């Protein structure tokens, strides 16, 4: 905690809120002893839009579009989490084809998020070229999802009980062609970045998260798996159609930035595997549950559901009092916990590593601010 401005030996350095590598509006006060950081205190809330307060003043359907705006990089996972929670409250069964479509679009969305992280993170580290490669790839997915959902970023695609639109042959062939293309790029990515000696020197042994710290702070997602804990909601608390696919959970060993990078890179290949299997096994049938009530009025009770987003566990806690409006919605967002540990790991690091550590946990600030 930084209380006074200037101690005898230290000084305070202000980072943000309008800094290009804070990926949003995050401000961090750094107490410096020369080049080394002795304490760090983040100031968040610049993008607070009161989603939880809005939820209490809207009915269940009206709150659905909000979900795409909490984490704009993996909007479909937030759609999925909210729909799952309401479906659980209502006791709705989602048809299998709809679950498959949810998995396919969700994994495509995860790929866009990881690709954006990959490019933007390397740009933070001073490498410009990978950014152009990733955005080239990412554009193909955005076009695919645009053709299906009608939007490029803030998707509002799932409905309570299924999905509103079926995927057609163009989407399927386009996705297959894209997966083929993306796989041909892994060698380029490895040559450009993974084997790059400057990158390795900047990331190996920097920004360590230990397993104990991860438990104390409730870290989830690739930042946790980089430390060697194989916790992924898709496997540990399986939802939707995920149990029907074969995929692995990549983990790191040391918990440094390099491991988190490797985990994300390998996860992209696993997403490709899931999409391919889902397209091969796509069942026929309806895409919406029968008998979805027009007026969503869940019975009294509470529910907690969790899904795996590109950044970690998104949990949604809904309290219903039998009304058309939710009584309370709490959004447990992954970056919130991840950022609070990252601030700890700044300590005793060089100021030159701040941006490298900050980018490595893939923060999305509007998600933290809600």
């Amino acid at each position: 905690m930084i209380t006074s401005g200037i101690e005898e030996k230290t000084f305070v350095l202000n980072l943000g809120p309008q800094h290009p590598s804070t990926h949003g509006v995050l401000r961090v006060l750094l107490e410096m002893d020369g080049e080394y950081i002795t304490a760090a205190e983040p100031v968040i809330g610049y993008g607070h839009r009161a989603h939880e307060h809005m939820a209490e003043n809207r009915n269940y359907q009206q709150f659905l579009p909000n979900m795409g705006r909490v984490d704009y990089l993996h909007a479909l996972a937030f759609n999925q989490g909210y729909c799952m929670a309401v479906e659980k409250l209502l006791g709705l069964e989602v048809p299998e084809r709809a679950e498959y479509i949810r998995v396919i679009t969700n994994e495509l969305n995860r790929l866009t998020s990881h690709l954006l992280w990959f490019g933007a993170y390397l740009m933070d580290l001073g490498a410009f070229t990978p950014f152009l490669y990733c955005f080239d790839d990412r554009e193909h997915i955005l076009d695919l999802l645009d053709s299906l959902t009608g939007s490029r970023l803030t998707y509002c695609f799932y409905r309570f009980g299924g999905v509103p639109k079926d995927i057609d042959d163009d989407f399927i062939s386009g996705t297959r062609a894209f997966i083929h293309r993306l796989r041909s790029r892994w060698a380029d990515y490895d040559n450009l970045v993974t084997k790059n000696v400057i990158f390795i020197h900047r990331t190996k042994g920097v920004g360590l998260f230990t397993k104990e710290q991860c438990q104390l702070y409730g870290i989830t997602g690739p930042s946790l798996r980089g430390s060697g804990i194989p916790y992924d909601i898709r496997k540990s608390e399986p939802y939707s159609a995920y149990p029907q696919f074969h995929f692995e959970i990549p983990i790191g060993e040391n918990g440094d930035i390099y491991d988190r990078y490797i985990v994300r890179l390998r996860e992209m290949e696993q997403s490709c595997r899931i999409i391919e299997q889902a397209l091969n096994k796509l069942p026929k049938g309806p895409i919406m549950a029968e008998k979805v009530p027009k007026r969503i009025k869940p019975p009294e009770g509470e529910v907690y559901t969790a899904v795996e987003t590109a950044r970690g566990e998104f949990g949604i806690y809904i309290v219903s009092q039998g009304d058309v409006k939710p009584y309370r919605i709490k959004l447990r967002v992954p970056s919130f916990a991840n950022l609070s540990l990252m601030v700890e790991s700044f300590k005793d690091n060089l100021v030159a590593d701040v941006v490298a550590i900050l980018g490595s946990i893939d923060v999305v600030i509007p998600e933290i601010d809600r």
Partner: protein
Amino acid sequence: MLSESIPQALSPLNLEKVAPGDYAKTGYHLEVTATPEQMPAVAQALLKEGCFLESLTAVHTSREAFTLVYHFANFYELCRTAVHAVLPDGAEAPTISHVFPGADWYEREVYDLYGIKFAGHPNLKRLLLPEDADIHPLRKEFPAEAEAKAEAPK
């Protein structure tokens, strides 16, 4: 099996309720009811069982009381424990941030949005709203958007 070892670890604390939850309906494997004063001990016991704090929040249940809701989960075994603790309006709850440092920000958020104070918290100040805000917007008496608009001077 955590669903057996957690109730065992909690039994010396004499909690009001430790019962298996209805996972298909609520997503909980264990449901626990405690008083806010028992929370540091509950958190300590769950830490020893290898759990992590998934989320911490409050619900403004009535005019007189709040319910603090703590969710704990485990990295290696699926067992979500939900702990409910009823707190009268105006009372202070002891912090658990010395047990789980991750609770620090969650408690600041609850203070910010509800005005609930956590005794022993090292740095209890606003998190999401501006430092000089004088509102606690998730309290039920706080006006909804439409009401706020109607009351605003024209």
